[in-house]
C-alpha cells in the first residue's frame, strides 16, 4: 500500500507509534509535506470524524486517533516549515467564561487540526477579552466559542459585540457551538456561523474562510 494511505489507515486505528514511524519513512522517501499532510494525516482524521458523526465509533477512538495525528504532525512540522506549507488558517478556540465543560471544544480542536488548521486553544473559562486579544496577537481570522451551559452563552454575545465595537468583525469571524446553542441564537447575537458538531465546525470554518 502507498505509504500515505498507510498513514491514514494507521491513524484511523489510533496507532500513534506507527503513524510517527510511517510519517518519518514518508519524509525519508522524499514525499512533499503537503501530500503527507493532506493524503495521510488529514485524510485519516476525516474518516475518523465521519465515523464519529455516524456513531460508528466513540470518543475514545477519536482521542486515540487524535494522539496518532499529533504524533504524525510533530514529525512533519520541520518539513512543513521548510517547504513553507502554510496552515489552512488560524483559529482561536475556547470554552466561554464560566463554563468548565470542554470535551466538545476539544473535539472541535482535534477536527480543525485534523483538517489542517492551526489552532490556538485558550482552554476553558475564557473571558471575552482573552478571545479577542488572542485572535489579534496570533493573527487568527476565526474565533470558535463553545458553551454547554445556558448561563454562560451571553459571553459569546459579548465577544461578537466587542469585535464589532473595535472594528474587527470583518477580519475576525466567529463560530459558536455547544449543546444549548442553536443556529437561531448564533443569528440573534450576530455570530458568523453556528456549528452543531466538530466535523460541522470544520465545514463552517472552511466556508467562512472560503
Amino acid at each position: 500500500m502507498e505509504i500515505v494511505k498507510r498513514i491514514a489507515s494507521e491513524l484511523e486505528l489510533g496507532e500513534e507509534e506507527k503513524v510517527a514511524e510511517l510519517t518519518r519513512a514518508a519524509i525519508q522517501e522524499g514525499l512533499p509535506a503537503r501530500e503527507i499532510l493532506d493524503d495521510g494525516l488529514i485524510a485519516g482524521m476525516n474518516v475518523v470524524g465521519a465515523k464519529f458523526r455516524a456513531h460508528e465509533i466513540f470518543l475514545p477512538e477519536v482521542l486515540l486517533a487524535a494522539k496518532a495525528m499529533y504524533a504524525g504532525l510533530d514529525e512533519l512540522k520541520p518539513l512543513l516549515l521548510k517547504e513553507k506549507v502554510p496552515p489552512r488558517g488560524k483559529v482561536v478556540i475556547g470554552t466561554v467564561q464560566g463554563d468548565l465543560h470542554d470535551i466538545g471544544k476539544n473535539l472541535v480542536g482535534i477536527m480543525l487540526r485534523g483538517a489542517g488548521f492551526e489552532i490556538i486553544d485558550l482552554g476553558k473559562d475564557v473571558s471575552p477579552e482573552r478571545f479577542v486579544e488572542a485572535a489579534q496577537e496570533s493573527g487568527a481570522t476565526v474565533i470558535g466559542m463553545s458553551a454547554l451551559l445556558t448561563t454562560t452563552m451571553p459571553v459569546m454575545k459579548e465577544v461578537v459585540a466587542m469585535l464589532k465595537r473595535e472594528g474587527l468583525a470583518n477580519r475576525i469571524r466567529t463560530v459558536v457551538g455547544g449543546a444549548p446553542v442553536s443556529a437561531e441564537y448564533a443569528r440573534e447575537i450576530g455570530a458568523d456561523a453556528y456549528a452543531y458538531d466538530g466535523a460541522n465546525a470544520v465545514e463552517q470554518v472552511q466556508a467562512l474562510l472560503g
Partner: protein
Amino acid sequence: MESLLTRLRSGEVLVADGAMGTLLFERGLERGDSPEGLNLTRPEVLEEVARLYFDAGAQIVQTNTFGGSPLKLAMYNLDGQTEEINARAAQAVRRAVGEKAYVSGSCGPTGRILKPYGDTEPEDVRAAFERQMKALLEAGVDLLCVETMTDLAEARMAVEAARSLSKEIPVVATMTFDPTPRGFFTVMGTDIPTAARELAAAGADILGSNCGNGIEQMIRIALEFKEHSTLPVIIQSNAGIPVHEDGETVYPEGPEFMAEKARELLVAGVAIIGGCCGTTPDHICALRKAVAAANGPAPG
C-alpha cells in the same frame, strides 16, 4: 426513617429532586465561580434550595457536590477544602429535610479523561472519589449518587470507592446516554446492557440514567435498563432539549407534560423518578402527584 432499599423493594416509587444550577444562579452564584464554592460562603442558599424541593414533594434531595471531588475542585483551587465543601452541603440539606427525606450525596464526573485516552491515572480518580465520599458519609448522607457518568471506567471506580467506604450505604449509579442509530450509547461508547452489568458488578444498588435527554427518550432508556437488570431503576430526565425562544433559552417540557409522561416510566417499573437540567420544584411537585396516584394513598 425506613431504609431506602427496603422501601424500594416493597415496590414503593420515590421522587427525587430537580435541577440545582438554575436555582443557585438565581440566588447569586456568579458565572465563572465554582457552584460548590457556595457551600463555604453561603450554605443558607443550599438549605433554601433543598427546602424548595422538599416542599415540592422530593423524597430524595441531593447535596450541592456534583463537582465536589478534589480533582474537579482543583480547577478552582478549592481541592484543599474538599472535606468542608462536601460536609457543609450535606449538613445544609439535612437541616432542610430533617429525617423526612433522604439526603443524597451527589458525585459527578471528575472532568478528567482517563489513560490511555487522556492523561489522568485511574488511581487518581479512585482516590478523588474516595476522599469526597468519605466526607459526605461522615456528614451523614443517606445514600451516595454517582451521576452523569459517560466513562464506564470512571463510573465503576466511583461505585467501587463508595463500596469500599461502606458496605451498607445505598449507592446509585447513573450514566448519560445519547440516542444513536444503533441504540443508546454514552459519548464514550458504553451501551445500556454493559452499563447495567458492570455497575451492578461494581456494587451499585440502584441503576439508571440522568441528563442528556427529555422524558420520551428516558422512557426507552428505562425500558432497556429493566430488560437488562433486576436492580431498582432511577430516571432523572431533563425538561427536554433546550430551545431558543424570544432571546431566552428555555427547556420545552413543562411540569404537566413530564408528569403525564412519567406514567409510562411507572408502567416500565422505574423505582425513583426525579429531574435534571431545566426541571424546577414545579416539575417535582407534578411528578410527586403522578407517583402518588400510582402508589396509592401515601403517608404524608
